[in-house]
């Protein structure tokens, strides 16, 4: 199980990565992340929505209200150009971190 501190740090990357494939509303976004990480990253409402609101303020994502075929209103989030720009360095940073940790583990066990 991944600890809460790491989860917080990776959650933004997960949201940006998933939204790169197309706009999603909150529930579907959380579900997609949970599925794609085999349940390692899962969100309560208290973790998901405050984060989405913060990311919206940072202009990495944009939420708009949309009405589905059955008439239900859903707020859909999509990646903004600023979010797309943020994604590459964020991915690189995390990849570097994981590579460093992997190397450290190899040294520790070698």
């Amino acid at each position, binding site marked *: 199980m991944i600890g809460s501190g790491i989860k917080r740090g990776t959650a933004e990357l997960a949201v940006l990565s998933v939204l790169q494939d197309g706009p999603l509303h909150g529930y579907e976004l959380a579900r997609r992340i949970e599925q794609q990480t085999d349940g390692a990253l899962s969100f*309560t409402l208290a973790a998901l929505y405050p984060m989405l609101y913060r990311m919206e303020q940072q202009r990495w994502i944009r939420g708009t209200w949309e009405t589905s075929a059955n008439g*239900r209103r859903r707020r859909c989030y999509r990646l903004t150009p600023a979010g797309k720009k943020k994604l590459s360095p964020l991915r690189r940073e995390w990849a570097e971190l994981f590579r460093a940790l992997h190397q450290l583990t190899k040294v520790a066990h070698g």
Partner: protein
Amino acid sequence: MADWQELVRQRLAGLALDAAEKDDVHAELAAHLEDSYARFREEGLPEKEAIHRTLAHVADWRDLQRKIFVAKRRAHPMKKRVQQLWIPGLLTLTLSMMSLAALQKLGFQARIVWNGPTAILLYVPWLLSLPFFGALGACVSSRAGGSRRIALLASVFPVLALATAFLLMFPIGMIIEWVTGRVVDFSVVATALLMNGIGWLLVPGAALLAGGLLVNLLLSRESSSQHMAIG
């Protein structure tokens, strides 16, 4: 089937955002719960179990409300501090001072409980009114999204202000000493501060804190009972 919109509206009733923003948050969270519930039903879960699992998405409604408020107001940290601490704190201070003045005007006198070199004076009717003001301060702070710690600070705000005023007596005494050339006996000042500190800070502080703690307890119970109510 549960009315998710109504459920969210009730449980996040204290979300201190403007009406339109609050409605949007309610609608968005209700839609999330509705989708989750529909998914569980599609998977074949009975209604009661589906509701139970859907509500497990929110461990603590009060925490959710606070986090949403903080996230939405992140761009205005000063505004948040004013709404969560300064306004409720000053309200508690103003009301408690007005209450003291009114009681004195009505003829209620302080009771001397210890008559040593410096008497300890206690305004018992005023002290009895303080838990109410402490509770009010904590309540206003909580409704503005204040954490439990901030709500308690708002409830004891009057004694914090008085403590600051008391502590300022030392530098002010030194300035008076320097300006007038008269020697101030600081041991007398310290004794007076200690005695007054009990009557004006310690006991009123405990009374205000009692009110603040009661509100915290009630709000946390309300939050957990709301969680149990639907299932």
